[in-house]
C-alpha cells in the first residue's frame, strides 16, 4: 500500500479570504494528496491540535492579514511541542520579502507569495516528504 501525503490547510487569524487556500487545496488533491481543510479563523492552538490528530506530513498556512510574524512562529512552536518534529510547515499569502528569512529561521520550509505556481508547490512538498520518510 503506498503512503499518501497528508496535508493540513489552515487559515490562522482574522482575515476572511480563503480563495487562495482553496486553490491550493484543490491543486494538492489533484496531485494525489489527502488535504484536510479546516476553514477560516483558526487559532494557533486549533491548527496544532488538528495537525496532531490528523498526523499530517505538511501544514500549509494561508495568511493575508499581515499577522504572519505573530502567528506563524507560534504555530510552529506548538506543532513541535506536540512532538511532531518532522512536520513540514509552508506559508502562502501576502508576505513581504524582508520577513521571509525570519519565517524560515522560525522553521518554515517555504513561503509562496502571489503568482506562485502550484506545480512548484507540489514538487517541493513531494521532494521534502520523500526526504523525511519516517518509516
Amino acid at each position, binding site marked *: 500500500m503506498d503512503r499518501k501525503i*497528508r496535508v493540513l490547510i489552515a487559515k490562522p487569524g482574522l482575515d476572511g479570504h480563503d480563495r487562495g487556500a482553496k486553490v491550493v487545496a484543490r491543486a494538492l488533491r489533484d496531485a494525489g494528496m489527502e488535504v*484536510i481543510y*479546516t476553514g477560516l479563523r483558526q487559532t494557533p492552538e486549533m491548527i496544532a491540535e488538528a495537525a496532531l490528530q490528523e498526523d499530517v506530513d505538511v501544514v500549509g498556512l494561508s495568511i493575508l492579514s499581515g499577522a504572519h510574524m505573530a502567528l506563524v512562529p507560534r504555530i510552529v512552536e506548538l506543532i513541535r511541542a506536540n512532538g*511532531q518534529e518532522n512536520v513540514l510547515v509552508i506559508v502562502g499569502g501576502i508576505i513581504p520579502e524582508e520577513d521571509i528569512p525570519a519565517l524560515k529561521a522560525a522553521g518554515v520550509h517555504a513561503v509562496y507569495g502571489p503568482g506562485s505556481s502550484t506545480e512548484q508547490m507540489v514538487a517541493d512538498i513531494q521532494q521534502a516528504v520523500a526526504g523525511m520518510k519516517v518509516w
Partner: protein
Amino acid sequence: MDLVKEVLSGSRLALARLLTQVENDTPEGRQALNSLFPYTGRAHLIGVTGAPGTGKSSLVGRLAQAFRAEGGPQAPRVGIIAVDPTSPFSGGAILGDRVRMRDLAGDEGIFIRSMASRGALGGLARATAGAVQVLDAAGYGVILIETVGAGQSEVDIARLAHTVIVVEAPGLGDDIQAIKAGILEIADILVVNKADLPGADQAVRALRSMLDLAHPARLMRGGCDARELALAAGNGNGHGGHSGGNGSHGGAAGAALSVWEPPVLKTSAPLNEGIAEVVAAIRAHRQYLQASGELQRREMERLQNCLDRLLQETLVERWWSGVSRETYAEVLERLAGRNLTPYEAVEELLKP
C-alpha cells in the same frame, strides 16, 4: 516508540500515528491491531449517514459536545471518524468535515480523525473498522463514524455501528426516496436536520408514514418471543430517559419494545436544538440492544463480516503469490478475444 503501549497509556500523538499505520495497512499497523484487540468491544459505535448537505458533520459536532457536556466528570471521551470521498482520478481527497466541528477544539476528550475513502464504495474506507478498534482500545467510550454521504448504498455502516443515525434535511426529495431500499432499513434513529428551514414537518411526516409502511420492525411485530419481550419491557420501565427517544414515535412504546421502532427526530445544528433528544434516543437504543440480546447478535455479525472480508483479501493475496502476471495477462487476452468466457477464465486461473 512502542505505539501500542503509548496508545494504551493515553498518548494522542501515538494514537494519531497508529491510525496512520492502520490506514496504510502496514505490517506494524496489523501487529498493533492484534495487540489491541483484547482491549476493544467497550465503545458504543454510532454511525451517521445521509445525503451530502444534510448536515452530518455539524450534527456529529453537536452530538460530541452533548456527550461531553452531559456526563459531567464521568463524561465519555468521544472519538470521531469522518470519511470523505477520494477522487477516482487523482487518488487525492479534500477532507472538509473539520470545518463544521470547530467548536470541539480545545477539548482533550475529543479526538477527530478525517479519513479518505480510498476507493471503497460502501461509504466507509477499508481501514475504518481498524481505526475504530484503535479508538475503542484507546478508551474512547463513544465513537461517532460519519460516512461519505453518497446516500443510497451506504450499508457498510450498518455492519460496523451499533446505532445508525440516518440524517435527512427538508426538501431533499419526496417520500418515494424514503422507501427505496437501503437507507431506511439501516436507520435506528432518523433525524430531520436543518429543522429551522421550511418543510421540516413535511419531511418528518413523510418519514413516519414510510416507516409505518416499510420498516421491518412493523412487519416483525407480534412475532417475537414472550420472554424477550418481558425482559425488554422490564428494562424500559426502569429508565425515564427511554421516553425521550422511543416515545416520540407514539403509541407502540410498551408492547413493541422488543422490536426497535426508529424514532424520527428534528434537529437544528446551528441553533443546537433537538440534540439532547438524539442523545437520549441513542442511549435508549443502547439499552434496547443490551436488553434484547441484539447487541451480541450485531457484534457477532460485525465480527463475521470482518472475518469474511479478511479471509477474502488474504485468499486473493495468496493466490496472486502463486500465479505469474504473464499467465494472468495471457488469460485476459484470450478473454478479450472472446476465446474464453469470464467463467472459463476464472476456472483456468484457479487451476492448480
